[in-house]
């Protein structure tokens, strides 16, 4: 038996090597490398990008914002509060251990101890049913069980148990300091990490025992280099030093597109860029007419064309297209004449002076956008005193609500509309944490109620209607100034088929990447 197995294995290796299917190296450059190898230390794009390389989630997003089965083979709703997941059999961790429901439950319990992730999972708990079945049980009816299951990347519980050389628990999640899980990793993902020098280079090799045999991916090695400076990153691609880069700066889009031998992929993104108008700081902003006037005075389509060079989609709401809350009836409202008459109606035709703050290194062209808004508001006699600063200094100012108008961009961690309203539109409440980023101090009881209601609705149709109603209310109230959704852009050498693996969440499924 053993001999036959050996023979089979050798034969398989020979076939694979002969076909050359596993002999491609991908050299890629992002603007930053992951902070930690621990998938639960920080909830950020970088962490998720890495997680999809080294781990696999229970389910993952597909291009239509639906869910594909990964480590969960199938799932079904048992009752209002319970969703049952069948865990795939025969899945091996990098350490050689086999995946069982025990690992999934262990991982789930670990997430609940993560500062960054626990808010998402606050209403959920997990129970093991048998070796390959788990139940996710929610406190009440909860619509986002599958959304959240995309965040569950089962970890190798045996590998992360016990104590490390410093006598610390290997499973500890440590924010600022050394931990076993931040440097060592065993997942089920398509790649293992072979070497890592933080800030300089990470090398990945394809995991020979990867469970997903149907994956067409043929990348056997990845050399990942962070290149912070956008022009250098583009130059590295154009000169052939790397095969794949992201993000591509708006100024270089045409260059990459027109260059022979490189391909550009862009997609409308999900991060909404907005300005908030602080009603606690300014009496004027309490008047909906003034807020409407401001929204009407800002030509956000012009900003997308001129400043973003078309690299964005002008917005009239928070939810991007594809989200349940996206309300197709809402359109950008630039109309300077109407803005002026609204100011007159409100009794402010002489205008007033406001302060404004924006970061200068957080969002694409953030400070240029702020400058454009400044000059647009001058046309309705609102004089803007603008201060821009690096994000490191900006966020403390934002927390202080230090200016009358502040810029904020938001990406919904759950890929669901309600997350926008929870953080940006609900009445700020220190105890519940709602409205934590609502620097406009906009408050509308109806929005609060509806948002709370959508968090426990499980009927998609009813929920979509409620979410779209919220967008409509926010639109009519001019609760905030919607600018645009930032586009996403990736670029690769011709023959590297990134178009098949990139997605609007911006975590490419590199395990499935095919290189000619």
């Amino acid at each position, binding site marked *: 038996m053993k001999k036959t197995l050996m023979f089979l294995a050798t034969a398989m290796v020979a076939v694979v090597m002969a076909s050359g299917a596993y002999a491609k190296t991908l050299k890629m450059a992002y603007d930053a490398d992951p902070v930690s190898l621990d998938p639960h230390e920080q909830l950020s794009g970088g962490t998720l990008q890495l997680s999809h390389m080294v781990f696999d989630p229970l389910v993952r997003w597909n291009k239509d914002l639906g869910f594909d089965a990964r480590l969960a083979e199938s799932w079904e709703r048992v009752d209002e509060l319970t969703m049952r997941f069948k865990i795939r059999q025969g899945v091996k961790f990098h350490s050689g251990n086999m995946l069982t429901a025990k690992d999934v439950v262990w991982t789930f319990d670990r997430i609940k101890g993560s500062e*960054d992730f626990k808010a998402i999972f606050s209403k959920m708990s997990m129970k093991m049913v048998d070796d390959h079945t788990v139940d996710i049980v929610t406190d009440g009816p909860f619509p986002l069980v599958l959304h959240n299951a995309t965040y569950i990347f089962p970890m190798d519980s045996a590998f992360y148990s016990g104590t490390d050389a410093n006598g610390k628990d290997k499973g500890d999640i440590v924010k*600022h300091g050394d931990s076993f899980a931040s440097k060592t990793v065993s997942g089920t993902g398509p790649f293992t990490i072979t070497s890592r020098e933080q*800030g300089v280079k990470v090398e990945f090799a394809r995991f020979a025992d990867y469970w997903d045999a149907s994956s067409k991916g043929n990348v056997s090695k990845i050399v990942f280099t962070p290149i912070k400076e956008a022009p250098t990153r583009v130059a590295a691609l154009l000169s052939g030093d790397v095969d794949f880069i992201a993000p591509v700066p708006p100024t270089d889009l045409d260059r990459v597109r027109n260059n022979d031998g490189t391909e550009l992929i862009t997609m409308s993104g999900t991060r909404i860029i907005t300005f908030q108008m602080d009603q606690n700081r300014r009496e004027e902003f309490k008047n909906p007419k003034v807020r409407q006037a401001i929204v009407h005075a800002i030509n956000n389509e012009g900003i997308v064309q001129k400043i973003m060079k078309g690299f964005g989609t002008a917005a009239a709401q928070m939810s991007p297209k594809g989200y349940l809350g996206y309300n197709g009836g809402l359109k950008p409202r630039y109309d300077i004449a109407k803005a002026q008459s609204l100011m007159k109606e409100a009794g402010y035709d002489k205008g007033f002076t406001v302060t404004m703050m924006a970061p200068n290194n957080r969002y694409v062209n953030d400070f240029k956008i702020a400058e454009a808004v400044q000059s647009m508001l001058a046309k309705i006699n609102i004089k803007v005193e603008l201060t821009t600063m690096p994000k490191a200094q900006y966020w403390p100012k934002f927390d202080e609500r230090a200016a009358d108008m502040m810029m904020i961009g938001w990406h919904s961690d759950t890929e669901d509309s309600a997350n926008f309203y929870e953080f940006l539109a609900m009445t700020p409440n220190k105890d519940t*944490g709602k409205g934590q980023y609502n620097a406009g101090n906009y408050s509308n009881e109806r929005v609060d109620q509806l948002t709370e209601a959508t968090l426990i609705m499980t009927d998609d149709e009813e929920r979509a209607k409620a979410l779209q109603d919220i967008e409509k209310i926010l639109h009519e109230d001019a609760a905030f100034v919607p600018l645009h959704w930032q586009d996403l852009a990736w670029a690769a050498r011709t023959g590297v088929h990134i178009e098949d693996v990139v997605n609007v969440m911006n975590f490419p499924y590199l395990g499935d990447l095919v290189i000619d």
Partner: protein
Amino acid sequence: MDTLAFLIKRLGQAAVVMLVISIIGFSIQDNLGDPLRELVGQSVSEEVRDELREEMGLNDPFFVQYWRFLTKAVQGDLGTSYFFKKPALEVIMGKFPATFELVLAATFIIIFVSVPVGIYCAIHPKSFFSRLAMAVSIVGISVPVFLTAIFSIYIFAIYLDWLPSYGRGDTVDLGFWRTGFLSLDGLSHLILPALALSSIMLPLFIRLIRGEMMEVLRSEYVRFAWAKGLHPSRVYLLHAFKNTLLPVITVGGVQVGTLIAYTILTETVFQWPGMGFLFLEAVNRVDTPLIIAYIIVVGLIFVITNTIVDLVYTMVNPMVRITGVKG
């Protein structure tokens, strides 16, 4: 004996300088931003952030924090980087070889280009080449280093495809030092960043050497040397050039600091994994322990290079005694 006394004095000065730097570094850290923003995700509540701040001792009064830093610093512990999760000093020392080799390569370029060109321009001030060198150096002085860097990437890496566009390439690990000097790949990666970095100093030194040398060539003892019928090479190199060196070394010592400052830009453009790049990243991430450690290490480098310059000075010109150059 003099040298020893001088060194001890310098050591004392260095300690004071370090202390002042650390106080300044520490007092600006509150204005650098909130490290927690970079450590936690967007939906983490302010309460949890505050708990973390408390745990990290960020809520303590300034002097408590500073005293804690100082007592550890004298034992060689400059704190732990938030991002790298390793001692800040260890992180910086890990990046030091990359920066050192870059500065060294740039210095070589500066010396081996500026000396011959400077001498030539002084001897033949009216020749076409001299005029050209002067014209180019004016341009060189006025173009900022990041432009030089980006242009050179576009010309040599993309258009001509001769040299790599970023990074340090293969390095050879010598145990205590990772060097890019020992592999062809490493050397080819070094060329563009070193050229870009040297481009700021090169024109300055060509002009300085030319100016000083022309001055010296007009002096009495050079005329006397000519009158003695000495061979031109002896007159130019031994009599004239050696005396040109004094001001050049003085300026050079000061300019090492500028060179280190410019590594921040050069390394960022070329994604060169050195200290300068590390520093800029640390500022972006509000990694305060790393920022302060960098400032202290660079301060130390300044003190050391200036001490070396003073010592070299006495070797070039024995008339200058070190006790006379203090301060």
